[in-house]
């Protein structure tokens, strides 16, 4: 589904990704790990097409199509979606306005989204400005709700657990599971995505197929999520850094 080849990116003149290679096949959800500032968010924002993340080398393709030159809208319309780590607030624009826009073309989904809003206890957000004055957990719920209503082919979630209390973690985990659950058309195939989180609580509830570790703008290790997580929980990223130096 997504193929990233020797991707190099700079932000404000500073190299943040130094040759990233990543392959995410359809029906798999991958986990991206790495210390703060290693470039995880940069990778995700670059895949979405945010122009501040300037691609200086390499390429991104989706289902065989090179999307390196496409703008954000084009990528979104191809089916890439993102729940941001720190989304901006959009004053004046109500969540309802954006949801209406998204659902305009998917009337069949409206009912389901309304149900979700009820389940996630989000009715009161609908008439508030997007992300404005929301708590950490509320922002995450809103971001994931938007992803759920769009049902992107490739969904990325950047630290959906950060700044969230324990009760919300449960809810957010189940929302993410709905996001990646098999669609009617392909009952045996999961959704495709890339998840950034270090929350063992969340990872106990969400199945991931493979984990990657990013250090200083490079993917230094890929493998079985449980094994890699255990290692990191034990000894932090130190071992990854040592491993990389070997």
């Amino acid at each position, binding site marked *: 589904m997504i193929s990233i080849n020797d991707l190099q990116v700079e932000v404000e003149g500073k190299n943040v990704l130094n040759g990233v290679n990543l392959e995410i096949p359809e029906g798999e959800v991958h986990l991206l790990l790495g210390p703060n500032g290693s470039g995880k968010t940069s990778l995700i924002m670059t895949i979405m097409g945010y122009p501040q993340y300037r691609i200086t080398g390499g390429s991104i393709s989706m289902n065989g199509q090179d999307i390196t030159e496409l*703008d*954000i*809208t084009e990528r979104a319309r191809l089916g890439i979606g*993102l729940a*941001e780590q720190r989304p901006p607030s959009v*004053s*004046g*624009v109500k969540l309802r306005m*954006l949801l209406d826009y998204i659902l305009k073309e998917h009337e069949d989904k409206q009912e389901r989204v309304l149900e979700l809003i009820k389940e996630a206890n989000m009715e009161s957000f609908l008439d508030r400005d997007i992300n404005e004055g929301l708590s950490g957990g509320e922002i995450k719920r809103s971001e994931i709700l938007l992803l759920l209503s*769009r049902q992107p082919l490739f969904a990325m979630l950047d630290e959906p657990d950060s700044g969230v209390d324990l009760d919300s973690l449960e809810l957010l985990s189940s929302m993410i599971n709905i996001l990646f659950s098999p669609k009617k058309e392909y009952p045996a195939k999961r959704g495709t995505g890339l998840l950034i989180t270090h929350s063992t609580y969340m990872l106990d509830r969400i199945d991931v197929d493979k984990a990657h570790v990013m250090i200083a703008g490079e993917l230094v290790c890929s493998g079985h999520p449980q094994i890699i997580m255990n290692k990191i929980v034990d000894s932090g990223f130190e071992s990854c850094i040592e491993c990389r130096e070997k």
Partner: protein
Amino acid sequence: MSREIIMVSNNIKELDRNDSTILSEVGISTEDEKRSGTFVLKDSEPVCSCSSLEGVELLPMAEALEKYDWLWGQYYWGLIPEDDSPLPMDQTISKKPLGYFLRVKKGEHVKLPSQAALYMTGSLGKQILHNVVILEEDSELELITGCISNAFMRGGEHIAVSETYIGKNASLINTMVHSWGRDVRVKPHSATIVEEGGSYVSNYISLRPAGIVDSNPVTYLNGTGASAKYFSVILGSESSEITLGGDVYLNADETSAEIAHRAVCTGGKIIQKGLLVGKASCHAHVDCSGMLISPGEDGYIESIPGLRSHHEEAQMSHEASIGKIAPQQVQYLMAHGMEEREAISMIVRGFLDADITGLGPELDQRIAEIAELAGHGE
């Protein structure tokens, strides 16, 4: 055709189909079952003046002056002294004015809106009119005023004196939609008086900016508990010069006023003002907000919210902010599938709607149109 032989129709359905299409752009409906009264002035001819309700009287101003000799002085030139009028009103115009007289009788709660269309086609360089609106005690009305010039029209001038009287516990919502050709000069001169417990809401929406608009409506809240709300939405573009004011005198206790101006500048000059004058125990707030979208070299917005207090119990506040659209916000919406211009429209729409609710579908529609235009960078 000379003026004398034109009959004022009393049925809006007889309007030329072309005309009715144009008028619908500014909220004028030709289905008379949707309106309680209709007045249409085309250039210098009142082509329609009718009302479907006993309690609503709608007449060409000249006819009303003949019919009611109490009008002159008490109402006509009652709020705006004739001598002070800055407009070129010579005596002949003053005696046989264009414009309308609208009266809602005591206790009448009119469900359907009334409407007045002031329409310029270009066969006349100037449209000068004088309107009087009277809401008697305990009456209620929503009035839609649509002003429009034919798209082909170049130049021209629209000058209007309006005097509005809102009686005890009466309520008027006046929604004015303007859509003028590029070089038209527009100079409304409006004054409103509100008595005890009365309420006045004035919505002003400018769809296509004229060349020059200069408007400074004045409202006097003279009765205890009277209230006024001004809300304006304007889109300025290159070569337009818009000055939009609004003075409210809070002369009695428990009066309240709110002014909210919203301007989007894609060029040209916009000055938005508001002056609250507190002379009693009252509450009032004025907010002049603006948004710049590629205003070019010469485009600007100037916001001047003003407060003048004579009374220690007058609680008055103001705010003003002018900003541009943050690119992160546009990109965020694009990441949810919107095109850049759609995202800008949605943000403009949010800005225009902010803190203002219950405008009704008609106005929501107009605001959506403005937001749409702004998204195209017009």
